[in-house]
């Protein structure tokens, strides 16, 4: 199971990194989403994996999962949503003002873009 989780984290990271290195905003945002999954699972996994262990206190249980990483990841999920939303809007704004959603400024300034 550990190997599966580690591979998942690695695969998501690799895909995310590849996508954020693209030249258009949309793949970059999707890449960030994948990276977010990877990081969230990574942080969650720092509490070590547990299957079938109760996360809620009860008298019958002998062991619990580690709640702290879960709480951290929960806030991380919500925050990354907020961040994604802002990024999407920025990309949208750039696309509407210039006509495409390139992320780089290396080329000569594009035409004012009323195409």
């Amino acid at each position: 199971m550990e190997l599966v989780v580690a591979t998942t984290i690695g695969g998501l990271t690799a895909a995310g990194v590849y996508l954020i290195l693209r030249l258009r905003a949309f793949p970059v945002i999707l890449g960030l989403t994948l990276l977010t999954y990877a990081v969230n699972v990574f942080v969650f996994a720092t509490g070590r994996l547990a299957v079938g262990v109760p996360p809620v206190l009860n008298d019958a249980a002998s062991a619990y999962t580690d709640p702290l990483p879960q709480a951290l990841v929960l806030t991380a999920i919500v925050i990354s949503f907020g961040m994604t939303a802002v990024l999407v809007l920025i990309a949208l704004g750039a696309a509407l003002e210039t006509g495409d959603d390139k992320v780089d400024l290396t080329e000569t300034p594009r035409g004012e873009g009323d195409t």
Partner: protein
Amino acid sequence: MVSGSGLLAVMVLLPFIGALVPGLMIRAGRDACATFTAVPTLLALVFLGVLAPEVMQGGTVTARIEWLPMLGLNANFFLDGLGLLFAGMILGMGLLITLYARFYLSGDDPMGQFYTYLLLFQGAMLGISVSDNILMLLVFWELTSLSSFLLIGYWKHLPEGRQGARMALTVTGAGGLAMIAGMLILGNIVGSYDLSVILQHGDEIRASEYYLPALILILLGAFTKSAQFPFHFWLPHAMAAPTPVSAYLHSATMVKAGVFLMARMWPALAGTDAWFYIVSTVGLVTMVLGALIALFKDDLKALLAFSTVSHLGLLTMLLGFGTPMAATVAVFHILNHLTFKAALFMSAGIVDHEAHTRDIKRLGGLASLMPATALIAVVAALSMAGIPPLNGFMSKELMLEEAAHTNWWGGEWPIIILATTGALLSVAYSFRFIGHTFFGPVRDDYPHHPHDPPTGMLLAPAFLSAMVVLIGLFPMVFAGPIVDVASAAVTGGRAEHVHLKLWHGVTPALFMSIIAVAGGAFLLWLHRPLDRAWQRTPRPEAKAMFDSVVARTVLGARWLIESTHNGAISRYLAIFVVATVLLGFAAFQGGGTPEPTREMLPVPPLVGVGFVLTMLATLATVFAHRNRFRTLILVSVVGLMVSAGFVYLSAPDLALTQISVDTVTVMLMLLALHFLPKYTPLESPLSMRIRDGVIAVIAGAAVASLAYSFLLTDISPISDYHLANSYKGGGGTNVVNVILVDFRGYDTYGEIVVLGIAGLTLYALMEALLNGPASRRLRNWTFPPDRSRDRHPLMMVVATRVMMPIAALVGVYIFLRGHNLPGGGFVSGLVISIALLMQYMASGFAWTQERKRFEYHAMIGWGVIIAGLTGAGAWLAGAPFLTSAFGYFTIPPFEEFELATAMLFDLGVFLTVLGAVMLMLYSLSRMARYAGETVNLEPMDYDPSRRVDAAIEADKKDEA
């Protein structure tokens, strides 16, 4: 009654507070401006006078203000003999300079600025002299560099002024940085950043293995500040400053900060071979070299500048000797140098002011034209040359006496010869200053006919020259006591009481003195041929070297920036990823991989399927990413699988949140994609894609191996505490939720504020966008011809209407159970916002908008306020912010139930999440209106309860 310690702290603050005044008072005229600059200085001087008696009796005055005690950074001040001497010099000179500058500055110069900078500098200098905390001292140290930068560059229109200011800041600033490192090492050795503690631990410091690095770093700071060879070159260029600044900063106070620091640190650092050889050698070289260059300078101020360099070298050398007596002589000479050098600078300023030149070759014979100035300057210059009965004579004699029995590089002779040479050159340039400026024939080609300036301008230098004579004649009255306490402070009480007198009997120093005076006069006689020879000799030009170093640094920095920071975010991200991987790799090398201590958990077949699905979806995302709709669906598959993973791995809260957030995110992206290109064009060349692929795979492998290695080792988590206290302290059995709303409530509070801000940012951005060029593009928007004509399908409208109350009920349920079972404010906020969003999707933006009762902005605000007030409510109970309270209540006919303040907090979270999410999507959907979407009056396009032809008519109207 203010206690002594209070006075001390206020004294340091006074110049800073006073610095605000001149800028305002300049409107009331130049006299008022100067007067009000003098007030804080005078007041500080009075305070110092009140504190002085205690110090003069051998005590110290301390003021302790705790600032950041965890960092060892406290606003501690102490006033001992050395501090008293320097504080007195700084404030006294400050007063004289204020007076002098009033007459020196012309009507065109912005005087308010000048005085403000001057007071800032004075405050910083005062801070250095009485700081008891070395971190505070460093702050003041840098402040002197900054304020000196402002003062040197005061005449902004002069390129020399700007360049000189920049050079001074670069050199002293770089030295200051080195010193910070040295001081931190020192503080680390002793375990305290308090100077008074550090000075007690001299033996410990000298025995430490970090002594040498600390010493070198601190000396770098002191040498750059005090213009010691090879950092002496900035001081002459700083002479582009107005003369009052040169007199104040570059002869009397700031350049002595380095000497002060060496004196201050003397008990802690001095007494080793390293100290002796570094400090005395640098001092000696600086002394001789500075004096030599001074002899051949034609600019009066440049001559004085190099003479200052030389005298600072002398002081450094004396401190370097490391004997208590030499330190005492240094203290005495600090005082003497202040009196004669400041008087000389002011005289040079007067000459410049009156004759409109300070070129010695164009001057001469001024004694009969401006007798008062000449008298002042001659007295001061003779003291500089070391002619009895002036104060310079006494300190020079004492210096030569010390030099005469110091064993340096294997004997006493080298130092005797070099010290005598220094003194000899000093006599020569002093005589040249007098002889070629004031004596000789009166000329008729001065740029401006000179005469004595107004009395106000003469007062300050006259006072200083009087001090030169008085200290010379009655040393024990005017200098003895203060030199006594100051040198006791420098040496940690090891110095004997001083007996300053003019006549020391026939000693080796007397012979050396006689040789120096005679030789100096002879050199001056030979000056003309020597000068020609000197001009022909090639010499390294410090400014050119400095400029080329700066230019090369700029080139290097520009190359670095332009090759990394070229505006391509993909490049930054690639550099960032590669650097992170490399750092991680280095860290791995350092620590090694721990041995596995956990058994691997088995992988049931279902999980295996999920894993394969995740990987396939991820791979497909990468390879199909150019078709954006398809990628979005693939990414949501990944999101679903991750949520399923959370369920399997006992994290139901995360699964709930992940699913709802993913739903909202996909909706958001779909909305955005409506106005974005639908396909990503193939732009990057194959080589770049391969490069990115390699980077990505390496990064992924690195993260995977890191995760794998820590997953197999055990840790001792801190969450045992949370598990144990969740029910007892937080009143909830869902530990994750209790952590969010109680243990780490602060985090959550911050987080909802961020989320609220993100929502508002989106709203504001959209507002700006729709008023910009984008709105024109939107108005001309053409939709693809294949888009659905059934915009508000009947089925969807009905389904979402039915779902709405159910979803709301689920939301409330999730919210209420959150404290004890998986759920909570976050999830329920998201669930309800999804239910609402469905309405928008089904019946259109405007239709839904009209039925909205609450403003989303207000919802965010109320959410934050409720959460904040709940947290603050804990104060009423005398507990810290966000401490929760709970209790169990029974209201028939219900069962016993729990009420916790945490629930109220969670309500705030709920409202903020709901408000923020809705505001974000609301902002995005507004775009559609601009793109010409029509507003439907009915909830759905085809309403079966209405006649068919009416619907067709509506449809026609829609198309028109």
